[in-house]
């Protein structure tokens, strides 16, 4: 085999998958396989290698955070939001996870022939509203239209730039044994809201997406507590996948307490019916904060003064034992591992 990576053949064995499956975009093991086997080897550098939600760059003495994201959600309008505010909030939150104050974002639209202009208007209105709320400016953009059947109404790609808050050093590698894991509220609302709408399920109460920008709340924490080690928004693949990534890259263990993880009654009910594990369901307004235990009470106090953090709680600890594994202490007192998701969760038969 040649020493030059560009002359090598694809390192993912053909016996695994010859083609991209939906699961390659699910945020789990198959996504990680693409990153590890294709993107890192071909494109890797010391910044990309940090494996964070965004890149932290220093240019002319200014520390910036830079991120990109694409939004392909179906349905494009869902309880609690639409693809427009989701795109802004998602990008803002990725910057927040770098310890930055979001400043500027770009938007690139890929529109499918036949999309009602009225829908685009509604989506862009939501973008404006979400951008104003987060204090970011949309400073550049692009529009492309593809033929009928070549897209799915509207896809949005974004990038975002933020200014890293001085004195912070956020990254999964900072995670240390003894740290606490805090989340700002209940999990799985977004994924279940989307799935319920997509599949036409209705429950007693409408389950709404938790899509929200978290910059105001997190900035307040970071202004006071520079000791925060990791920030991560548990989006695709849910809480379980986000914590597995952190545990893997920091070579620490993580222990979660099932009874501390908030899940709304209606989401729990939906998960029971559909056979889904809420630990793997996407969130769009949640953030995991990993920090020294001594600072937890102060951080929780700040979080709970914000609408998005009212139900903030400590859900687990970072440990020295079982590095690379996430363990769950169940409600009945036993302990098991929480693995990274393999593909899409598929409803069970009975």
């Amino acid at each position, binding site marked *: 085999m040649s020493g030059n990576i560009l002359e090598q053949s694809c390192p993912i064995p053909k016996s695994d998958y010859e083609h991209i499956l939906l699961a390659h975009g699910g945020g789990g093991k198959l996504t990680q396989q693409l990153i590890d086997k294709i993107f890192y080897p071909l494109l890797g550098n010391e910044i990309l290698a940090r494996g964070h939600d965004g890149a932290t760059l220093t240019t002319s003495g200014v520390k910036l955070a830079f991120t990109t994201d694409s939004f392909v959600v179906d349905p494009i309008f869902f309880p609690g939001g639409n693809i427009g505010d989701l795109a802004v909030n998602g990008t803002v939150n990725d910057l927040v996870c770098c310890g930055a104050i979001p400043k500027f974002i770009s938007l690139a639209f890929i529109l499918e022939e036949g999309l009602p202009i009225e829908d685009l208007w509604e989506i862009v209105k939501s973008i404006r509203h979400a951008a104003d709320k987060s204090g970011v400016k949309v400073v550049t953009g692009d529009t492309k239209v593809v033929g009928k059947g070549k897209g799915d109404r509207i896809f949005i790609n974004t990038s975002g730039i933020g200014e890293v808050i001085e004195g912070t050093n956020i990254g999964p590698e900072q995670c240390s044994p003894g740290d606490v894991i805090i989340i700002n509220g209940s999990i799985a609302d977004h994924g279940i809201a989307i799935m319920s709408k997509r599949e036409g399920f209705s429950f007693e109460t409408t389950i709404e997406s938790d899509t929200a920008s978290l910059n105001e709340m997190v900035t307040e924490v970071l202004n006071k507590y520079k000791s925060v080690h990791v920030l991560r928004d548990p989006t695709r693949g849910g809480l379980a996948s986000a914590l597995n990534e952190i545990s893997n890259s920091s070579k620490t263990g993580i222990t979660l307490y099932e009874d501390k993880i908030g899940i709304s009654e209606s989401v729990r009910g939906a998960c029971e019916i559909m056979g889904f594990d809420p630990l793997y369901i996407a969130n769009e307004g949640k953030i995991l904060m990993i920090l020294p235990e001594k600072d937890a009470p102060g951080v929780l106090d700040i979080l709970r003064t914000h609408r998005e953090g009212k139900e903030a709680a400590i859900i687990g600890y970072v440990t020295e034992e079982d590095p690379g594994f996430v363990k769950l202490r*169940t409600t009945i007192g036993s302990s098991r591992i929480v693995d990274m998701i393999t593909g899409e969760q598929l409803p069970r038969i009975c």
Partner: protein
Amino acid sequence: MKHIDEYRDKTLVDNLIRKIESEVSRPWTIMEICGGQTHAIMKYNLLDLLPREITMVHGPGCPVCVTPIELIEKALILSRRENTILASFGDMLRVPGSTTDLLSTKALGGNVQMVYSPLDAVQLAIDHPHMQVVFFAVGFETTAPAVALAVSQANIRKIDNFSILVAHVLVPPAIQALLSAPQNRIDGFLAAGHVCTVMGYEQYIPIAEKYKTPMVVTGFEPVDILFGIQKTVHMLESGVVGVENAYPRSVKKEGNLPAQALLKEIFEIGDRNWRGIGPIPGSGYHLREKYRRFNADLLFDLQGIEAEEPAICIAGEILTGNKKPFECSAFGTLCKPEKPLGAPMVSSEGACAAYFKYSITEKN
């Protein structure tokens, strides 16, 4: 959440464990039939709480795991057929055939639709009158009534572009096959609560008596499962043979009579090949002659299609409880959920998937 939390209650769990500990005097091997129970056992790591005298072995009650590979090949052929929609429960989509699975076929343009109910497949047929819609009818007695209802509805509404590829299997003949095998080491059974909700448990009584093996109808939450185990241990320790019901909130002795009547109307019982296990006499549902126009096997000339299992997969040993997933040389190495060799590694009711997902100590 009401009707869930009380069956995941730590105090009740602790009490049941104490009761089992106080009653057990020697080693017992108990098999839970249903893959849903296997996953609950692993998800709550009940093995950690049970006394060491109790060995749980995992049974063949994973519907997609026992669906014979030749039927998956047929489903794959249908998914690639022009003007045809192959409708299936989600859990079937990742199950490997001899070379590929339905999700991969879908990625290459195969027309595979995931549905939550067989009636959704009937609706698909109504919505796509120029397409043939075939429902992949997989599952035990639990799912069979919904399929029977779909056929009945399609018949009444004279829908001529709907058919089913039948893979339904029955539990009691499988239990008989396990108990009559020379290597059988099962002392007691946890019978599957959902199957018994439909079928009742009268038909288990002669089997329990013939093989002198107690059976306890058991639910799916931790308290349900431990209650089932506690009852089984009690029966074993006191030498009682028979069938008891530890899931009375769902199961009646006679079962769901209207569902059984519908099953009898649509299906007849015949032999069925079980993946990894082989043919078991009288263990499958087949469409009755008068409903043959809904039989995809006949409609699309699929009879005679065969396929081979990967030699390395020991799914049969796993599904009959003879081996644990860790005892397979491919477990966690050649066979992982992202690239399974056999169905038990991929199904949400498969034993290998449960061990891989929830267990730390013996995984690579």
